[in-house]
């Protein structure tokens, strides 16, 4: 076979093997986290501390973005709906778009770039400065002490942030539709009530955000733990967390949507 064919094929093979290897590694990592979760969930103060860093510190960005996304939905939705004479359905449009797709997906993307990257950088730096080594030399398992609490904190925080994003978005739509444009506020809420189903829309949206939370946090802690222990290694691991999380969120969203709706 000519050389110009062999070398791209070899690269493709290398990339595939690498991808599969990483997938296997991340699965084993998840198993290890779950195995040691008992210890860290017993000492719940560790998880609470991480919920503070992952969740509480993300509140502002989630509130502000949720509000703006809802306001944009309100404006765009009104423009389109009024063309068909059905601007009354604005509440339904805003609520359904947020609950089913925008809320979970955007909150997860924001969470990945705000908290996921911070987790990767933190764990990566702990590795680079031998803190993880120091821990294991002190007979403390770093997965139980450092990784598992962060993992659970992420899993807990994500649905809360997504729910808050939804509420802020619906409120943003209300600001535009009712306060600014002057639709009837009763219609806004009742249209929403009629269209939104607790199980199909609210619960499924929360399940989505839970799945995203697991995926993003797992990627974040894995990239941190797997980072090359140098400044360059940690920075590229942080980048990988954001990029991989974004791709995984969107791919998972497609799969979940196909199954749910």
């Amino acid at each position, binding site marked *: 076979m000519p050389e110009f064919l062999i070398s791209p094929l070899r690269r493709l093979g290398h990339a595939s093997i690498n991808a599969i290897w990483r997938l296997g590694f991340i699965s084993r990592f998840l198993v290890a986290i779950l195995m040691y979760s008992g210890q860290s969930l017993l000492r719940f103060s560790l998880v609470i501390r991480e919920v503070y860093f992952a969740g509480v510190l993300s509140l502002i960005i989630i509130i502000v973005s949720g509000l703006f996304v809802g306001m944009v939905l309100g404006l765009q939705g009104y423009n389109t709906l009024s063309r068909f004479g059905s601007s009354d359905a604005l509440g339904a449009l805003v609520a359904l778009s947020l609950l089913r797709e925008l809320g979970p997906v955007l909150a997860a993307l924001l969470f990945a770039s705000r908290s996921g990257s911070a987790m990767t950088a*933190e764990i990566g*730096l*702990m590795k680079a*400065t*031998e*803190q993880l*080594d*120091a*821990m*294991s*030399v*002190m*007979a*403390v398992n770093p997965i139980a*002490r450092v990784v598992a609490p962060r993992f659970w904190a992420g899993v807990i925080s994500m649905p809360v942030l997504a729910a808050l994003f939804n509420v802020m978005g619906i409120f943003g739509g209300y600001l535009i539709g009712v306060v600014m444009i002057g639709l009837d506020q009763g219609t806004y809420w009742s249209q929403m009530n009629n269209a939104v189903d607790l199980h199909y829309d609210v619960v499924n949206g929360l399940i989505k955000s839970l799945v995203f939370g697991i995926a993003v946090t797992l990627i974040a802690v894995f990239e941190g733990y797997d980072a090359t222990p140098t400044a360059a290694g940690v920075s590229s691991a942080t980048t990988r967390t954001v990029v991989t999380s974004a791709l995984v969120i969107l791919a998972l969203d497609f799969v979940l949507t196909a199954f749910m709706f």
Partner: protein
Amino acid sequence: MSSDFFIELRNVSFAYGRRPILKNINLRIQRGQLVAIMGGSGSGKTTLLRLISGQYRPQRGEVLVDGKDVAKMGHAELFAHRRRMGMLFQFGALFTDLSVFDNVAFPLREHTDLPENMIRDLVIMKLNAVGLRGTQELMPAELSGGMARRVALARAIALDPALMLYDEPFTGLDPISLGVIALLIKKLNDALGTSAIMVTHDVHKSLDIVDHVYFVANGEIIAEGTPDQVRAAESPWVHQFVHGEADGPVHFAYPAGRGLTDDLGMLGDGHA
């Protein structure tokens, strides 16, 4: 026979992939001794420490600590071994998200069920031993390099270990901090009766405090002896190392495959 030697390495070999780091190392350390392992950068000193702490496992040979082979220990045994061991890392490796107090209290909280007021007393005693009582509320970022190293030392001795490992304890310290750390290492070793291994390339300071020295180069032990024997050593390698000469048995230049003139392409006929 394992009783007179606390640590014994027998025919230990270790390699990263295909790159050999340690070749057939034999080393014995008596109970209560403070031993230095010296050698240039990349000579495998730190790897030696990690074999003893059980972070790495040798491909061949035995690493006996108190008669038990670290290389063959299971998970639980290894953790029990580490609980009796303290390690001071090169830059301290303090947990940056915990205060000084919480750093020193960390091993106590993880491995004992002591009540909080007793932990408090122990932490203050350990900090007092390294001369840093009063820094409890500070964060590691607020400490100088020397202070951080001393806090790390207090953390390492929190559980009164039977074995102390020091990984380059003098790196990056000013002469005063360096003197303080050396003094503390010596004092703690004498006071606690701990066996200790110190990996370092700071010759003069360590020769003042240790009982025995091993020289490692290219993954092999090439010389050993008491500090006095080492100072008087005839071996040209030890002489070069102790006196810090740029050229000698260890060459200044990397052994390049070709001559400089070849690399620069200055040879007329090879260069069309």
